[in-house]
C-alpha cells in the first residue's frame, strides 16, 4: 500500500512529526477519521525481512539508533556549570518507521491510579517540580485497553494491578528460567512475582503471529512481527486509508508560524538533503522526549524568542530517564535466559516506597539475562560479570559458564522532575545540516539514587534467596549518563505557567500545535513508560479529531 501523495504547497490537514510509539498511533487515528495526513520520519521504513541477529550492527554500528557517524551528534554534561562533550547513547532512540517501539523490549506496565496524583497524596518535594497530572487513571484507562487490543499486549491481571475494563487479548508469555528463579526468591521472602505484561504476542492476534522466542528483542526489530511496534500495528492501516502519506528519510528542521502565531508549515530536509516545507492546518509533534523539545527550541522566531510554545520556559525541562539497578547471579544449572523475551515476571511489592525511608521513589524488579539484550556478543564483552578475569584462559572458562548459567534481577525505578535536568541546544556543536546539536544535562536527584540503591539491595536479597552461587550488584551511583527513556520535557498541565501542553495535548501558546510522546508525561512512571505513551496517543488523537470535527483547531 503506497498511501497518498500530497504536494508540499498543498495545505494538508495534519503534519505528524515522527512515526514512533505516539506518532504512529496518532497518524493512523487522524487518517482513519478522514483527515489528510503527512507523516515525516527521519529514518527508513524497515520491515521484518530487514532484521537479523546482528549485534555488531545493532549495538556498535548503531544501525537503528544512529549517532554522530550519521551526522547526528549529541552532547552530555551532568550540571549546567560544565561544558557538554560529544557522546553517543545519551538520548538513545531508533531512527525508523515505528521509532523505538521497533527495538524496545516491550515491557508494558500501566501506570496505577497513584501515579497521577502522587504529589497531592504523598506531598510535593522541595526543589523539584513533582506534581499531579491533570488527568486521572480513569481518564486514561479506556486508552490503555485500546493499546492492549489494537497494539497487542500479553499478560494476566494481578491482584494489585489497576482496574481494567477488558481482559488482556493474549495470555502471558511462557515463564523463563530467570523468572522462575525470581519467583522462587520472591516466594521465599514473602513477595510476589507476577506475569509481566508485554507488547509481544503470546498467540496470534490481529493477523499477526505469536513470538517464536528467538531472544533478539531489546535493540532489535522483530523478525516475525510478534513485537507490537507501531510499524506493524498502525502504519499499514494508515497507508490503507488512501489519505495518508509516509515520507521517510525526512528530518524536520523547523515548525513555521504565520502572522497570527499559528503553525503554518513544517520545514524538513528530504532524503536528498533538499530543504522542503509542507503546509498544514495543524501540526502534531511526536518526535520523542528529546527531539520534540529540541525542535521547539529550534523553531524560535521574533514572536517566540525562547522557542515555540515555550512561554512557560518548561520546554526541555524536567527531563526524567527512569532509574535502574542490575543484580546478576550465577547458578549451578543452565538458565539460558538468552532464549525468549527479556522479562516474563515482575515483582511489584515496592511500587510505592514507604515515606518513612526518608526518600521518594518506587518501581519494580523483573528477571532477565545479565546483559539486558541477552545476546552473545554483549554478554561476552561483559564477562566476567562476577568480578572474575576479563581475558586469558580463566576468562575463556568463564565465557563457557556465564552466558548460559546466569540470571539478573533488575530494578526499574522513578525519576523526579528537576529544572536542572533538561534538553537544550548545544552552543557550539552542529549536526550535519548546521543545526545546533541536542545537548542533555542530567544528574539524578539524591532520592532517585537512593531508590536505585534500595532496589539493588532488594534484588541482592532475592538473588540470595533464589540460590545464586555468585552475585554482582550495581546501580549508576555517580549518576546516569544517558537513557532510552526521555520523559517530561514538554509536560502536560492546566497551568500555562508550569506546563507546555494542556490536558488534551494542545500547546498552551499555539492553538493548532499538539505534542504527544514521552515529553508529555508529568511523572516518570516506574520505569516502563511506553504503554502510557501509547495510551496518551490514542487519547490525544480522539480529542484532536473531536476538535477538528467541531472546527476548534
Amino acid at each position, binding site marked *: 500500500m503506497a498511501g497518498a501523495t500530497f504536494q508540499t504547497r498543498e495545505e494538508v490537514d495534519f503534519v505528524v512529526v515522527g512515526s514512533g510509539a505516539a506518532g504512529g498511533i496518532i497518524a493512523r487515528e487522524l487518517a482513519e477519521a478522514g483527515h489528510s495526513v503527512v507523516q515525516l520520519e527521519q529514518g527508513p521504513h524497515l520491515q521484518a525481512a530487514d532484521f537479523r541477529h546482528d549485534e555488531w550492527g545493532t*549495538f556498535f554500528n548503531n544501525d537503528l539508533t544512529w549517532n554522530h557517524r550519521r551526522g547526528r551528534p549529541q552532547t552530555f554534561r551532568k550540571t549546567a556549570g560544565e561544558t557538554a562533550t560529544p557522546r553517543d547513547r545519551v538520548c538513545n532512540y531508533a531512527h525508523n518507521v515505528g521509532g523505538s517501539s521497533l527495538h524496545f523490549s516491550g515491557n508494558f506496565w500501566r501506570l496505577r491510579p497513584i501515579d497521577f496524583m502522587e504529589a497531592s497524596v504523598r506531598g510535593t518535594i522541595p526543589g523539584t517540580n513533582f506534581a499531579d497530572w491533570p488527568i486521572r487513571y480513569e481518564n486514561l484507562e479506556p486508552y490503555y485497553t485500546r493499546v492492549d487490543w489494537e497494539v497487542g499486549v500479553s499478560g494476566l491481571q494481578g491482584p494489585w494491578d489497576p482496574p481494567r475494563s477488558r481482559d488482556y487479548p493474549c495470555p502471558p508469555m511462557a515463564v523463563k528460567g530467570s523468572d522462575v528463579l525470581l519467583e522462587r526468591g520472591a516466594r521465599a521472602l514473602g513477595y510476589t512475582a507476577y506475569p509481566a505484561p508485554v507488547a509481544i504476542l503470546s498467540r496470534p492476534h490481529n493477523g499477526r503471529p505469536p513470538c517464536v522466542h528467538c531472544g533478539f528483542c531489546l535493540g532489535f526489530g522483530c523478525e516475525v512481527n510478534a513485537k507490537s511496534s507501531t510499524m506493524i500495528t498502525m502504519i499499514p492501516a494508515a497507508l490503507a486509508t488512501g489519505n495518508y502519506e509516509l515520507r521517510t528519510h525526512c528530518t524536520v528542521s523547523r515548525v513555521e508560524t504565520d502572522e497570527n502565531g499559528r503553525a503554518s508549515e513544517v520545514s524538513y530536509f528530504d532524503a536528498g538533503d533538499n530543504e522542503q516545507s509542507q503546509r498544514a492546518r495543524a501540526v502534531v509533534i511526536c518526535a520523542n522526549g528529546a527531539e520534540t523539545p529540541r525542535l521547539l527550541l529550534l523553531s524560535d522566531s521574533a514572536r517566540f524568542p525562547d522557542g515555540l510554545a515555550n512561554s512557560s520556559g518548561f520546554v526541555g525541562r524536567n527531563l526524567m530517564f527512569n532509574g535502574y539497578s542490575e543484580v546478576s547471579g550465577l547458578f549451578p544449572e543452565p538458565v539460558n535466559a538468552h532464549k525468549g523475551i527479556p522479562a516474563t515476571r515482575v515483582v511489584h511489592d515496592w511500587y510505592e516506597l514507604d515515606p518513612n525511608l526518608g526518600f521518594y521513589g518506587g518501581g519494580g524488579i523483573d528477571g532477565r539475562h545479565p546483559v539486558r539484550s541477552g545476546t552473545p556478543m554483549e554478554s561476552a564483552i561483559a564477562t566476567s560479570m562476577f568480578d572474575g578475569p576479563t581475558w586469558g*584462559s580463566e*576468562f575463556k572458562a568463564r*565465557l563457557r559458564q556465564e552466558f548460559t548459567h546466569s540470571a539478573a534481577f533488575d530494578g526499574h525505578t522513578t525519576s523526579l522532575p528537576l529544572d536542572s535536568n533538561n534538553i537544550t541546544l548545544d552552543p557550539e556543536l552542529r549536526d550535519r545540516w548546521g543545526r545546533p546539536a541536542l545537548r542533555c544535562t542530567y544528574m539524578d536527584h539524591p532520592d532517585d539514587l537512593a531508590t536505585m540503591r534500595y532496589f539493588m539491595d532488594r534484588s541482592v536479597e532475592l538473588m540470595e534467596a533464589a540460590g545464586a552461587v555468585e552475585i554482582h550488584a550495581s*546501580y549508576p551511583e*555517580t549518576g546516569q549518563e544517558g537513557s532510552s527513556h526521555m520523559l517530561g520535557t514538554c509536560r502536560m498541565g492546566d497551568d500555562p505557567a508550569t506546563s507546555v501542553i494542556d490536558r488534551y495535548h494542545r500547546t498552551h501558546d499555539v492553538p493548532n500545535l499538539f505534542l504527544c510522546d514521552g515529553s508529555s508525561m508529568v511523572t516518570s512512571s516506574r520505569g516502563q513508560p511506553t504503554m502510557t505513551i501509547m495510551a496518551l496517543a490514542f487519547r490525544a488523537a480522539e480529542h484532536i479529531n473531536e476538535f477538528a470535527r467541531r472546527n476548534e483547531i
Partner: protein
Amino acid sequence: MEPHPLSRRDLLKNTLSALPRSAIALSLPAILAACSRAARNELDGAALQLLGGEEAEEFAAIADRIIPPDDTPGAREAGVVHFMDTVLADQRERELELLREGLGQLQQLVAGRFPVDRFSLLESGQQDELLREIEDSEFFATIRFLTVAGMFALPEYGGNRDLAGWDLLGFENRSVWQPPFGYYDEDYMNQGGR
C-alpha cells in the same frame, strides 16, 4: 569520558563510539592510503583490506592471549583479526591510530626487556606478563573489546569463524525456540508451576 565504575560494559561500548566529530571529515585519505597498502596483505591465508600483514600478526598474538586456544579455537583461529580489519576499515581512524600507537609502545616494551622486538615472538607466559602490565590502558581495552566482539559477531564480519565463538558460549543462532529453555523452567513445568 568518565568511566562508569560499576557498568563495565557501558565503558567498553563507548570506547568505539565516542569519536571526536572531526573523525569523519579526516577519514578519506587515511582510508585510501590504507587500502592501497592492504591489497598485498594477508593473515593465515586470508586477505586483509586495511591492516598490514605484520601488524595483523601482532594483533593476532595479543588476541590469542585474550581468548587463548585450548581444546577449542582461540581468537586467532576464529578470525578476530579479520573482524578487526573489517570494522576498522569502516571510518574508524581514531581506533586504528590508537591501536597502531599502542602496538608501537608495546613493541618498545618488548625490545627493552627481551632480545626480540616483536610481541608475537615471545612465549605465552612472557606475553601474558606484558599484557598484565598494560591491561588498564585504552589500547588494551580497545583490542580486548575488538577481540571479544569479533569472536561473537556474525561470521560475515570475518570473525567467529566456523561459529567458534558461539560454540564456546553454548549459543545456537536459531530463529525459533520452544520452552522450556533451561533447567529451571523445565523443573518449574514438571512441578506444575512451583
